[in-house]
Structure formats: C-alpha cells, structure tokens
C-alpha cells in the first residue's frame, strides 16, 4: 500500500532510483557537451560582432542576441511543450529521456551563450589591445588571448549550467524524461511516499554539491590571478 512504506521502502525502490540517476547522467552527458560546443562559439560570436567589438557586425549581433533572449524568455515547461514537433523531427518521438534532451539542450545553449558572452566581456580590453598591437590576427586573439583569459570564468559558468540543469531535468519528467528529479516527484507528489522522496532529494543535494565542488576546484586550478 503506497504512502506508508517508510524508509524500508527505499530499499525496494533502490534499483529504480539508480536507474533514474542513470537517466539524469545520460541527460547531462548528452546535453552538456552539445551546450558547450554550441554556446562557446555563439558567445564568442556575440563578443566579436557586438558594437565596438573585434569585428562589429550589428545585424548579426542583433539576430543572435534576440534569439538567445527569445529562448530564455520561455518558461522551461512551455519551451518543452512548444518544441514537441521539433523534438519529434529530430529523435522521432517526443517522449522519453532522449526526446527530453532536445529542449534541455536548446535551453542550456541559450543560457550558456549569454554566460559565455558575459565572461568574455570581463576580459580586460587592454589585453586584447596588446594582442592587436603585437600583430595577432583575430583568430589568434580569440584562441590564444580571449579564451585563455576567460577560461576560469567559463568553467564557472559551465558548473552553474550543469547544476541548474538538474533542476530543469526534473520538469522533463512530465513528458517521460525520467531522471532523479522526476523520480522524486513521482514518489513524493503522486504516491505520497515521503521517505522515498526525501531520499531522492538527499541524493540530488549530494549530486549538486559534488558538481559544484568539482567546478570550484577546476576554476581554482585554472585561475592564476591569485
């Protein structure tokens, strides 16, 4: 009988919980690389094309900027639903873990692009100018100066993205995306198994702490300013 299992139930549902954790892992593993591969160039593009940038292209900047804002203005649940036709087109179905990675990735790309742009804007204009004075090409300036100086901040942004991602992936459960967040909602909200839900939440807390710790250590290793 659901709802009064107590913590003994946790043992029963352990395999299911591990499977859910695996689904979260899969979502992260697919989405994070996509987000990085798309968002870093997008952020660099905005930085280069912005008015007063390395190679200003006002219209291109406007388009990328507006697109990023557009995606970010959707509440994630709405984005998830609005994207169903596109998701179906890409993975053939709109339900399941794989399907959910599509809106998750789009969301992550939009957020991370903006973070990357902000990180790049923090790089000292003097250093960029020194590169130009040295005779560095634009490509060289981006690769060997801009991204080198922004590296620690970029690692911080990726960490923030992964953490907020775990929370978004819980909403993805509504379309059968699975994952640990979805697991917590199913047991806590639909089946009143409070103990199971609490355990799942504890697992998520530990997960987030771990990711943040790894992120902070990475930033500290990359940052040579102190």
């Amino acid at each position, binding site marked *: 009988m659901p709802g009064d299992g107590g913590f003994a139930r946790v043992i029963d549902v352990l395999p299911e919980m591990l499977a859910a954790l695996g689904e979260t892992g899969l979502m992260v593993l697919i989405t994070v690389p996509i987000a990085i591969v798309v968002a870093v160039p997008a952020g660099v593009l905005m930085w280069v094309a912005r008015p007063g940038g390395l190679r200003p292209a006002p219209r291109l900047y406007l388009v990328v900027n507006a697109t990023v804002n557009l995606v970010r203005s959707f509440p994630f649940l709405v984005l998830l639903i609005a994207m169903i036709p596109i998701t179906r087109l890409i993975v053939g179905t709109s339900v399941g873990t794989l399907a959910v990675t599509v809106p998750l990735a789009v969301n992550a790309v939009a957020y991370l692009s903006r973070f990357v742009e902000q990180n790049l804007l923090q790089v000292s204009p003097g250093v960029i100018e020194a590169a130009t004075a040295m005779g560095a090409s634009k490509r060289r300036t981006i690769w060997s100066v801009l991204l*080198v100086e922004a590296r620690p901040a970029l690692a911080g942004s990726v960490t923030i993205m992964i953490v907020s991602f775990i929370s978004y992936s819980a909403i993805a459960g509504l379309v059968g995306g699975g994952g640990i967040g979805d697991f917590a909602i199913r047991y806590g909200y639909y089946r009143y198994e409070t103990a199971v839900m609490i355990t799942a939440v504890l697992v998520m807390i530990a997960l987030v702490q771990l990711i943040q710790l790894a992120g902070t250590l990475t930033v500290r290793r990359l940052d040579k300013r102190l």
Partner: protein
Amino acid sequence: MITLTGVTKRFTGPDGPLTAVDNVDLHVPRGSVQGVIGFSGAGKSTLIRMINLLERPDTGSVLVDGEELTTLDEESLRRRRTKIGMVFQQFNLLENLTAGQNVELALRVAGLPKAVRAARVAEALAVVDLADRAGSYPSKLSGGQKQRVAIARALANEPSVLLCDEPTSAVDPRTTITVLRYLKEINERLGITIVLVTHEMNVVKAIADDVAVMEDGKVVEHLRLDGSPLQPRTEISRFLLDDELRLGPTDVAAAKEARRAG
C-alpha cells in the same frame, strides 16, 4: 625612423565631435628617444596609437622605417606590427600565462617555430633581468617586474620601434627609475627607436632626445634635450617644467583674507 605627416584623428565625444589629434607632424630619427608630454586629454595616447595604427588616422601619413602603414592591407599590417613593440600603462599581460609564456605569445603571433622560441624568450627576459622569473604568473610579480616582462614581450620580435604609453604611470618613483634605465639601455644597446608618452617632465628629461609638447591635439612646441638650458616658449611647457606643486590659495583661505581686509 618614424614620420607622421599631417595626421588628424576625430572622435564623436559626449558633447559632439572632437579633434583628438589635429594635423600633427612628427619626425623621430632612427635610434632616438622621442618624448611626448601634455596634460590629460591632450591627445598623446591617440597620437602614439596612430604609429601602429591601433588608431587609424582620418587624414595624414604614417611612415615607419620608410614604409607607409595606412595603405597596407590587414595581413601586411599585422606582419608589420610584429616589428613595432608596444608597452602600456597597465602592463596588459595575460594573467593566466606565466612571464615566459607571455613573451612567447609575441613569438607565436609572429609565427616563430617552437624550436627557436625558448631561446628567444630567455634572451628577451634576460634583457630586463628577469630570466629567473620565467615561470612566475603576473599575480606573483611586482608592478615594476610586470612592466619589465611587458618590455621583454615587446622586444621579443626584435622590433625597430618601441612605443611606450605612460609606462611608468602605474609604478612608484623608484621603480620608475628602474624601468627608465631598461628603456635607455635598450635604446643605446639595441638601437631601438623609442616613443615615450608621459605627463611627467622628469620622465622624459631622464631619457628623451626631444620632447613634443601637446595641447588640444596639437604639438605646440619641441624641447630639445641636448644638455643646453631649456627655453620653454609656451605657458604649458613652463608649467610642466615647474616641478613644484603650487596649489594657490584655497577658497577658505581667500574668505579669511577677505574678512581680515574688510
């Protein structure tokens, strides 16, 4: 050798258009040290930045070692710039690279093969006596050391010209002397032509052969520093040569004086 002829640069400032550099001619003979002095906003930085085209003049010609820079295409200008070193007030080193890597960056930009870079880095750092700090990150160096690394970086590609925009304005007086000594040595030993922008007369007096005094975008006077007594013709030169800080009476003092009189 640098020859600027009729260079003008206009900007759109907050209160409409302004002429930062106004029809300036400047000739800097090979191997000499040219000082540029003036108050804030006189156009010194804009002028020196036009020599390597960080700022493109609206009109006029920029000749460096006989080559006109304003008509070069992007790639040629890029290659030309590797032979014009530049040093900045805020050093502008990459914080995430070591001193050695910062110097090496200039060599990578110039396309030098890896095999020869290490020796050139050591050589450039040795000029400023920092060979032993190659592995240090800028955050572990003092202001003076950072500026010396920046000088080494600017020298790495064996430039004919070194542009210095207020290289001593962010360091203390004793460090100023150290930095100027290195610049002087570089000029004398390597024969590199130096342009040095500052607002301190003592800095240019220490090393320049000639000082261009700027005001409102124009070079209003040249002061020759050949040992003969200086004879400033303009008000601004006299002010800059006067190293005493005359504050003049404050409003409070003036009010007191008025009360006593009335």
